[in-house]
């Protein structure tokens, strides 16, 4: 807890330490992906439903902010941040019926539905051009912040989203909701049989998850000052979220954050320094595959496993308990290995 607090304090203090703009710029995107990855974790990690269309809600948030400010003025520059919760609420409201229908299916069909959802959202953004500007794109109000601290509001907004997401994750892990999600992920039919409100819990997780992602989209759009359908509804965004969550460890509190802190600077570094080489895409995919094949549960659970085994071997008592059998989730553990089967 203390160490987590130190980390948070470090993040809060970062802009005050006078780093160059490009560092803050990098941190904004890192925090954004950390927040989104953490949000995705609720659905993909804890509930066990791999959504491949979360970017649809990212774009929804982006366009909501854009469209709102076609009709309202920005005076202080903070108005877009103020209406973020509204964007989140709308995303949750939109996500609710979608989850209700889509989460009644198998995990892989759920994935397909979410992929197509993303393309539907993108098509709508292109075609409803009187509302969204269509292919011409949508301009955001220009942020009136002074240059020296320009990135600060965006940085803190993203940080706030990350902390909110982590707080929600932490709370759900310690609550009945978390227990229900574990049960659903392990064996949905049995969970249903035992009296878990399967449908309600899944839909709740999805709605919360997409609300957070939508808010991230709103901040992103404001920072970019302009958005286009193919960039707001870009599958790469979902892929990033998923990859980071997998890298760090699904179903853990810190996993997605670690994943984001490793991958975002790494990817931007690769693109900036090595750019001009197509190998960057190969490297990205390669990392992805290596994780899947070598560390499928992600960094945190794998490291925790190894440490546990080493400790058990070091101690004089016998062989360690098998780590393939997941310890009964008490809600207190942050290490929740994801058993096979899922919701298939």
């Amino acid at each position, binding site marked *: *807890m203390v*160490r*987590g607090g*130190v*980390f948070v304090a*470090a993040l809060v203090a970062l802009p005050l330490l006078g*780093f*160059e*703009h*490009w*560092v803050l*710029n*990098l941190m904004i*995107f890192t925090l954004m992906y950390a927040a989104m990855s953490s949000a995705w974790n609720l659905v993909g990690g804890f509930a066990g439903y791999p959504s491949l269309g979360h970017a649809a809600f990212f774009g929804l948030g982006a366009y909501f902010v854009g469209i709102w400010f076609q009709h309202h003025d920005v005076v202080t520059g903070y108005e877009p941040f103020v209406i973020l919760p509204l964007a989140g609420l709308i995303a949750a409201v939109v996500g609710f019926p979608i989850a209700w229908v889509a989460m009644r299916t198998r995990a892989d069909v759920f994935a397909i539905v979410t992929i197509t959802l993303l393309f539907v959202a993108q*098509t709508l953004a*292109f*075609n409803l051009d009187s509302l969204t500007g*269509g*292919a*011409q*794109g949508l*301009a955001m109000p*220009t942020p009136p912040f002074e*240059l*020296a601290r*320009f990135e600060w509001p965006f940085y803190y907004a993203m940080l706030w989203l990350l902390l909110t997401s982590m707080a929600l994750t932490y709370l759900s892990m310690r609550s009945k909701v978390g227990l229900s999600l574990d049960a659903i992920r392990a064996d949905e039919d049995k969970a249903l049989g035992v009296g878990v409100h399967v449908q309600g819990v899944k839909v709740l997780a999805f709605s919360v998850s997409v609300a957070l992602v939508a808010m991230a989209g709103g901040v*992103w759009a404001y*920072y*970019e*000052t*302009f958005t*286009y359908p*193919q*960039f707001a509804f870009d599958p*790469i965004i979902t892929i990033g979220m998923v990859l980071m969550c997998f890298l760090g460890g699904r179903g*853990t*509190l*810190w*996993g997605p954050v*670690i994943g984001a*802190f*490793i991958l975002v*600077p790494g990817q*931007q570094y690769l*693109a*900036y320094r090595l*750019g*001009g*080489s197509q190998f*960057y895409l190969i490297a990205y995919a390669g990392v992805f595959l290596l994780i899947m094949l070598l560390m499928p549960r992600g*960094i*945190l659970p794998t*490291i*925790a496993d190894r*440490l*546990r085994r080493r400790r058990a071997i070091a101690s004089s008592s016998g062989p360690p308990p098998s780590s393939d059998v997941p310890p009964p989730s008490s809600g*207190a*553990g*942050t*290490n929740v290995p994801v058993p096979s089967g899922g919701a298939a």
Partner: protein
Amino acid sequence: MSSGNRLRGIATIAITSAAVLLLTSACAGTASNSTSSSAGTGSSAPSPSTTAPLLIGASVSLTGDFADSGKAVKAGYELWADEVNKKGGILGRQVEMKIVDDTSSPTQVVTNYQNLITQDKVDLVFGPFSSLLTIPASQVVKRYGYAFLEPAGGGPKVFAQKLDNLFFVQPAPVVKSGDVFADWVLSLPKADQPKTAAYAELDDPFSAPIAENIRARFEAAGIQTVYKQVYPAETRDLSPIMTKVAAANPDVLVSGTQSEDAYSQVKSLVQLKFSPKFMYMSNGANSPVEFPSKVGANNVNGIMSAADWYPGSPAPTSPAFVAAYTAKYGGSETDIDPSSAEAYSCGQLVEAVAAKTGKIDNATVISSLHQGTWPTLVGNLSWDAIGQPTGSFSLIQWIDQKLVPVYPAEVSKATPVYPKPNWGG
């Protein structure tokens, strides 16, 4: 100690080390980049006697959707840097281009210009490829007070931002590139003019607006619109639309296109055996090598397009450019992508400002370019207060399987051919 605590400990260590790594590289980056400009304002001028290299940064799309044009832009920038360095550089300083890849992504382009300006501390910046990327980039550049010479962002929304530091390095805003076709058609004797028109437009920030501009002028002149269709960018199969065009039997077909859809349109029309009397394509048809290769060399004659630079261009600096280009990159004149010429022109402008004012800081570039006319490969350019160039493009036509300028008279090398010959002729 529960496994939960241990886990948090590990997590903290991992994250902290990542953060430390990040911060170290940040500090290292800050410390090691000590070129002349100071951070933040970017408009302070190094003293003219310094011989430190003139660092010019640009983010171009070297991978992703815009990669081909992005590479052409890079080729143009680098060619210019080579050429100007051979002549002694700018104000005695050798030019060093720092070109980075934005992977055709607007998120990356913002990061790139942030990095170029505040990490690599470049003296000047040039623009990326495409309006889509130019818009977010221009906001970043504006904040730091840098001049933004950009060769490829000419859609209407670029100028809607009303930036005084932005200069679109082409003869006119993209939306107006088709005007020259409308000019020519409406200059014909009334009996020869088309009576009916069809419009097939790609839905993106440039193509559809060009066609719409032409349509407004045609309708005002009494040319009846018999069919209009805007199609989304991912449409691969244009036969349904071309079928309807053929059915409407227009005298003139105005196509707001990029490249792939232009090729598809022509191929469909050939298959449908429909050949309009006049045909204009905003893009795609102005590609000297690609177009005939994709649609068949014997199908190109008579199709018109617009261009700012083309092989045989009358711009005074063009022959030298072509010679240098082919020496450095090989191939022949017809292999040169106009994007390279536009990129090269950005460099020419910088050279010209330095020669005229003896200074090369951003504030000088911005104030100088807002006055007067500046000769470049793509024509004599001048801009209004928000960066829109005030010239016009040239109308080019395929004649005898070659692209030839035909209008206006000052650039014309041949009489425009009409009606368009049939396919295969």
